[in-house]
């Protein structure tokens, strides 16, 4: 199939047995809603266009609470408003899938190419950023990680994100759609958290969810249980893509669509005999820090070149993850603009030449 990224996501949600989408229009995610609202009635699924993103997020949590697989999609300033429902979901351990098609900030700025929502999507909100965020780099990944996001969200009960961008949203490319069961992927069903079976008080206790705590220690204990769960799931969930050889002297580090350009650049340069590898975190939260540290530790001389369409958002994560490591760091930071394979190649050639 040859289609846009937004269309791919609508089909993926359908294949993941999503019951309901709640959403508010914002470019570049609009077509997810368009395709979904066209498909939904034919498959017995629901759609609600809400009054804003606060409502899209909170109505979605309402649907999740009563046992439906729900999702929403947004971008930019909508992502800011989304942080409030996400904060509630984190503390109440409510699943849900958020698709973010990043755009250049603030409102209304640009809508095609940006990675400026990395920080917001991974750790926005007044909490500890207990979410799972997949940063995709192709339409095939948009499809497969959207499917996966539904499973991971309902398995671990943390908010789960598919982090794309306007370029992936609007571009057309080839993708193979499939029914998950055909590949042996088992989709985890949603269960009601509230209003499940049984008469409260007679067949079961009523369920009362809250986000109010009487004392600091009570909040601390609840939160630390979530943190423990999050740390336990981290090794099961982290994903990355890398190719580094023992004698490489430079490692390109990039995520999402820029990660794709970096991978292309590294492969081309490798073919030409340059000692260049690449590392692309697929989960940007939790971050595959362990894997990156292993690479860094294996060669303390290995220089990292962090490339992103933002001014140091991935860079600050990489720095934190490599605290205590002596590997030199270089950057190619292009906030809100596209980064091409050629630009990365050129930067690498310049850097490597300069050093010798």
């Amino acid at each position: 199939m040859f289609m846009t990224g937004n269309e791919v996501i609508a089909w993926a949600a359908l294949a993941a047995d999503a019951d309901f989408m709640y959403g508010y229009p914002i470019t570049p995610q609009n077509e997810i809603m368009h395709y979904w609202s066209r498909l939904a009635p034919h498959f017995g699924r629901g759609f609600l266009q809400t009054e804003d993103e606060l409502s899209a997020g909170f109505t979605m949590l309402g649907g999740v609470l009563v046992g439906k697989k729900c999702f929403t999609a947004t971008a930019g300033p909508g992502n800011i408003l989304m942080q409030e429902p996400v904060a509630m979901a984190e503390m109440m351990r409510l699943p849900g899938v958020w698709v973010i098609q990043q755009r250049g900030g603030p409102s209304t700025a640009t809508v095609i190419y940006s990675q400026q929502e990395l920080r917001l999507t991974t750790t926005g909100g007044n909490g500890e950023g207990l979410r799972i965020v997949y940063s995709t780099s192709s339409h095939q990944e948009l499809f497969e990680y959207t499917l996966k996001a539904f499973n991971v969200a309902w398995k671990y009960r943390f908010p789960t994100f598919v982090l794309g961008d306007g370029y992936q949203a609007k571009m057309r490319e080839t993708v193979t759609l499939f029914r998950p069961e055909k590949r042996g992927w088992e989709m985890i069903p949603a269960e009601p958290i509230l209003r499940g079976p049984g008469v409260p008080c007679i067949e079961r206790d009523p369920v009362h969810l809250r986000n109010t705590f009487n004392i600091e220690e009570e909040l601390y204990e609840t939160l630390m249980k979530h943190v423990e769960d999050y740390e336990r799931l981290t090794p099961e969930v982290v994903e990355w893509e890398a190719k580094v050889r023992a004698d490489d002297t430079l490692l390109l580090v990039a995520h999402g669509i820029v990660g794709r350009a970096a991978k292309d650049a590294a492969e081309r340069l490798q073919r030409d005999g340059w000692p260049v590898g690449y590392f692309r975190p697929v989960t940007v939260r939790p971050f595959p820090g362990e894997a990156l540290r292993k690479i860094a530790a294996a060669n303390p001389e290995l220089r990292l070149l962090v490339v992103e369409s933002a001014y140091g958002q991935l860079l600050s994560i990489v720095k934190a993850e490599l605290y205590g490591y002596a590997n030199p760091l270089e950057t190619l930071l292009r906030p809100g603009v596209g980064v091409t394979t050629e630009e990365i190649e050129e930067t690498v050639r310049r850097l490597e030449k300069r050093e010798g």
Partner: protein
Amino acid sequence: MSAEDLSVHRGILENLNMPVSWRKETKPHRFCPGCGHGIALKALGEAVDELGILDRVLYGCDIGCSLLSWDFFNFDSVQTHHGRTIPVIVGAKRARPDVIGIAYMGDGGGYAIGAQHLVSAAMRGDRITAILANNTLYAMTGGQMAPTTLPGQKTATTPYGREPQKSGAPLHGPELVAAIAPPGSYIARGSVGNYNQLKQYLKKALENQLTGSGFSFVEVLSACPTNWRTNAKETWEFLRGKMESHFKVGELRVPEQQTGGEEN
């Protein structure tokens, strides 16, 4: 719930003089003495009992003193964020029309920070029951001005009295909602000063959801002696005198005939 189950359960609670749907383990409740929230929720509990819908209700409460009711009832409940109770209940109702969704909030939650949700749910005719306690101020945060603060009323942020020229006149919520809600909506303003009437309004608001007729909204004139800094007599006078003369109690929209059938 079967009639038999209900009567067994009723038997257990009968002696306590509480609605069956009240959770006795969490009583006495956490509201201040003389607070209107407890009375409004008693009326709600009795309305749920009389309709026999305890096993269908999903109750959401806001941030504000209404949050103190997060474990108040014997039905499933969720305490949401400030102003966001209506969307949570709307989302649940849209996804599961069999659920009877109740959103309970204060006037700050419903008329200020969450006003867009109230207006939009009403405009869409969402089949939920929204109940808003109007105590003329923000109680939980220490008695600041609310959209409903009366002209001249002293609050923590209008220490010399509310001046309508500067901060607007009190918002008349049910009148606002009545102006935009589609046919089939039930809209009323009751008062904790008239318990039986309030209970009837709440019951009708739930029935309106049960029949799938439309959006239901009841504003409850409530009392906050703590932030009003009033004794029992003054509280009563402020509620029944000042508030009830400014905010007219009564039904604003009653669907002509509740048609029955499926909710959606």
